[in-house]
């Protein structure tokens, strides 16, 4: 665990311990409110993972909360098992349900995902109300026994408070462990630019599934605890209001940090109690307080705290080992063979029976007018799009049906026309996020360091990615691609927006990379940049190769001249 993360963990523990200690010295009511805070903090911790970290607006967290409450409560009432057994059942049951839900739902994006998860929550609510024989219907199920630990009943409110908060500490620790560096940077990359993450070797599907199930498990634990502390489980636990509360806790506390979930839960559980004396008007005061908090602290209370009190120490590159790791893997001869590649969008043929070979130490330029199929080709090679026909063979293995992240792990890296614009990562973190998962953390830090030492970004390691100039952002794109240890490097308009001097620097860098054994394919419209750097030039038109060969040969080709360079050059 890095020092930054250790510090964050300690800060979070302190934030938890201060109110807990105070609550232990108050009456049973104060302890009950803190117990509820702890329970909702657990649910919000799950939501922090799926929404705060992954950016997926799941509206099923309240549903998982209710499922945990119902499954643990019903088992407790009907079979009289210990709480821990019921909790285990609730966790397994909810995890299985979330897995079944995840299979169709996780394929959806943004608001479709939100609507699908909302629909699932509504179905669960209807089942709870109408399956009267099992759930007790609208009355719910009552007579849930008190919390117990290995047969010993936790009868006092302080016992229950400590029990719940011990579970919360375990869950917070687990969250920190899951979100340790550099995985947290990978998750941030995945949240901000999923396609960049996929082409950097990050398995998006696995992360989404893991986080969705983890959030469901945390929700189930919270629900089970709630059912046992109230003694009743009713459809109210599945209502949208619970979901809204969990969402509000996560956002108000600060969705980007586990401490935010704890702060949000404590605040939003206590806030209505503070305004209770206002009787019917307390909800107005509650709403106004929440509104003020959002205006004052748009990134949440912990975000504000972090901004003004905790200075992010960042990463001291100079303190890292100075060992010069190679930025790329030792590359023997590599070849990428493309045969009969075709792709159609509706009635438009983007690629037609395209053949191409890329080999080590070679730089190939790809030119053609807009719509000629250049970006489609790069997208298909990198796995972001699927071809209709054709094969792609990398070092003797066919990869045309392989997922994007697997292609990245096998040595295909790429950059994008539009540079990465993440608000939550600095330069060092972005490169580290893309470093190969196949190495240990120390190696990955060394590798990041090595890449930075060969880059103009060495003095900007702590700069936030979103604050970089166009040239620096392009440089970062290349560094991130190099962090994946590529054998094949696909550069999509790397010189766009660069000055002549910057283009010159990039040309030199690309040549060095090619000399190290990497095969490079460059798509760019700047002929002044492209022609001097490439060994071979391919001219595309309407998805087909019009001319191919050394630049001089292509420049002399009448078809290429007419299609791309225009008559003025002929």
């Amino acid at each position, binding site marked *: 665990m890095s020092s930054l993360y250790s510090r964050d963990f300690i800060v979070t523990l302190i934030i938890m311990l201060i109110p807990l200690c105070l609550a232990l010295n108050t009456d*049973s009511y104060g302890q*009950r409110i803190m117990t509820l805070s702890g329970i909702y903090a657990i649910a919000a911790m799950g939501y922090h993972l799926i929404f705060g970290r992954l950016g997926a607006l799941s509206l099923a967290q309240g549903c998982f909360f209710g499922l945990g409450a119902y499954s643990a409560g019903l088992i407790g009432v009907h079979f009289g098992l210990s709480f821990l057994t019921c909790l285990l059942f609730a966790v397994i049951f909810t995890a299985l349900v979330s897995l079944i839900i995840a299979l169709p739902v996780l394929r959806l994006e943004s608001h479709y995902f939100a609507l699908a998860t909302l629909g699932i929550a509504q179905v669960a609510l209807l089942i709870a*109300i109408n399956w009267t024989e099992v759930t007790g219907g609208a009355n*719910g199920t009552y007579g849930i026994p008190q919390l117990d630990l290995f047969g010993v009943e936790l009868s006092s409110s302080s016992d229950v408070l400590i029990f719940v908060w011990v579970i919360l500490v375990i869950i917070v620790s687990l969250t920190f462990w899951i979100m340790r560096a550099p995985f947290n940077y990978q998750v941030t990359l995945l949240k901000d630019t999923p396609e960049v993450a996929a082409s950097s070797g990050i398995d998006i599907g696995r992360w989404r599934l893991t986080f969705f199930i983890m959030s469901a498990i945390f929700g189930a634990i919270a629900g089970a605890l*709630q059912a046992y502390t109230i003694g*009743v489980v*009713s459809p109210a636990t599945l209502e949208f209001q619970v979901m809204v509360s969990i969402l509000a806790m996560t956002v108000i506390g600060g969705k980007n940090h586990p401490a935010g979930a704890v702060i949000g839960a404590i605040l939003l559980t206590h806030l209505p109690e503070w305004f*209770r004396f206002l009787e019917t008007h307390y909800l107005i005061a509650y709403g106004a307080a929440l509104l003020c908090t959002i205006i004052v602290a748009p990134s949440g209370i912990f975000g504000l705290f972090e901004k003004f009190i905790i200075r992010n120490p960042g990463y001291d590159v100079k303190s890292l080992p100075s060992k010069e790791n190679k930025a790329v893997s030792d590359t023997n001869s590599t070849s990428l063979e493309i045969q009969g590649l075709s792709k159609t969008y509706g009635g438009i043929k983007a690629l037609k029976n395209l053949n191409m070979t890329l080999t080590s130490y070679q730089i190939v330029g790809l030119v053609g007018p807009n719509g000629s199929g250049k970006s489609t080709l790069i997208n298909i090679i990198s796995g972001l799009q699927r071809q209709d026909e054709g094969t792609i063979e990398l070092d003797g293995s066919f990869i045309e049906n392989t997922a994007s992240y697997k292609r990245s792990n096998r040595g295909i890296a790429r950059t994008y026309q539009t540079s990465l614009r993440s608000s939550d990562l600095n330069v060092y973190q972005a490169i580290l996020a893309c470093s190969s998962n196949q190495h240990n953390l120390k190696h990955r830090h060394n590798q990041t360091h090595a890449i930075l030492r060969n880059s103009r970004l060495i003095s900007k390691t702590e700069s936030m990615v979103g604050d970089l100039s166009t040239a620096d952002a392009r440089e970062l794109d290349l560094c991130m691609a190099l962090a994946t240890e590529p054998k094949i490097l696909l550069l999509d308009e790397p010189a766009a927006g660069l000055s002549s001097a910057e283009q010159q620097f990039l040309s030199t860098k690309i040549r060095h990379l090619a000399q190290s054994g990497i095969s490079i394919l460059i798509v760019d419209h700047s002929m002044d940049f492209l022609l001097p750097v490439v060994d071979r030039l391919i001219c595309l038109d309407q998805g087909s190769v019009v001319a191919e060969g050394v630049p001089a040969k292509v420049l002399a080709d009448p078809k290429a001249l007419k299609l791309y360079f225009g008559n003025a050059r002929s």
Partner: protein
Amino acid sequence: MIKLTKLLTIFTMIVLFPISAETKETYIPILVPITGFLSLEGTAQRNGAIQALDEASSSLKIKYEVSDTSTSPEIAVTALQRALSRGKPVAIAAPIFGTQMLAMLPIAKRAGVPLITVSGTAKLTELDNPFIFRFFPGDAVVKVAHARYVTEVLRAKRPALLYQTTAYGQSGYSHLSKALRKAGVPLVFEEALAPSVKDMLPALTKLRAAKPDVILLHLHSTPTALVIRQARNSGIELPIVAGSAMHQPSTAKLLKNHQLRGVCAETAASPISETHPELIQFTTEYKKRFQTLPDAFALAQYDGMNMVITALRSGAKTAMDIRNWLATNTFNGLAMKYKSDGKGNMGHDATIVCYDGKTKTPKITKKYLNVDGTFN
């Protein structure tokens, strides 16, 4: 740094954890839903309890405090814990919402404090909890009266029922359908509606297709008004016999007079329809104090709190004294005579009120006394 820590501690203690109030006054918290879909009923409860406690304050030192229980059991339990931590309540005015009561009952039992409620959910008094006292006749009383009026007075043969998906709705449905089956007039149509449903036409269309001769409703206030309005607007002129929500002046306010023609409702009482001087005085005082008309829930809660006050005046000092007094004595309230049936059911009479389509004040059409035979 030490100063900062001290300040932080003091601030947190003040803000986070309200200080318990020690007082020699008799403490009676009022925990009712004054927000959410039961706010009308909960506010009526609150007003009835406050009126009773304020009237008693000339001779008794009573401290009360209103806490919203909203519509979730969790909030109700928290409100109860809060009340228990702030003093030693001798009784608690408890919410009308049955699900909340189910969560509160074990805590009240452990604390030994009687809950005074008007909740109609039958289950509450079937759990052998000696600390519940229900001053509104339960579904075992009002739904029997409901069914008897439909079958004996209206002589309906094909009743159709729309009920709520809540605990209130499911409990009422269970008792009403059972009473109708017993009378040999089973329901020809039944459908449960969520409280959030606003468009009743789909349910009414299906209901009309079943060719009923009377429509029975067991819904909360707003859904009751919505069903009646949409039924009348779509040309359904069948007689409607609704649940107790329809007797509430606030429900009638939502409808036009002509839409109320042929509409009846079961209830424990209808204070605005009564001509007894004491009830008129109650209604006048209530209207003056709260700027609204009282309903049966307000009156039942008023009667319940007055029975507690009578127990205090009779020498009861602790919560257990009050519980014992309520469990063993008969009390002549404004709405009816109250006596525990041994399970905490205090009310045993039901009333049917009907609207004539000219005013929003219903007329008492039929009274069913001692429906469950407690006074035999």
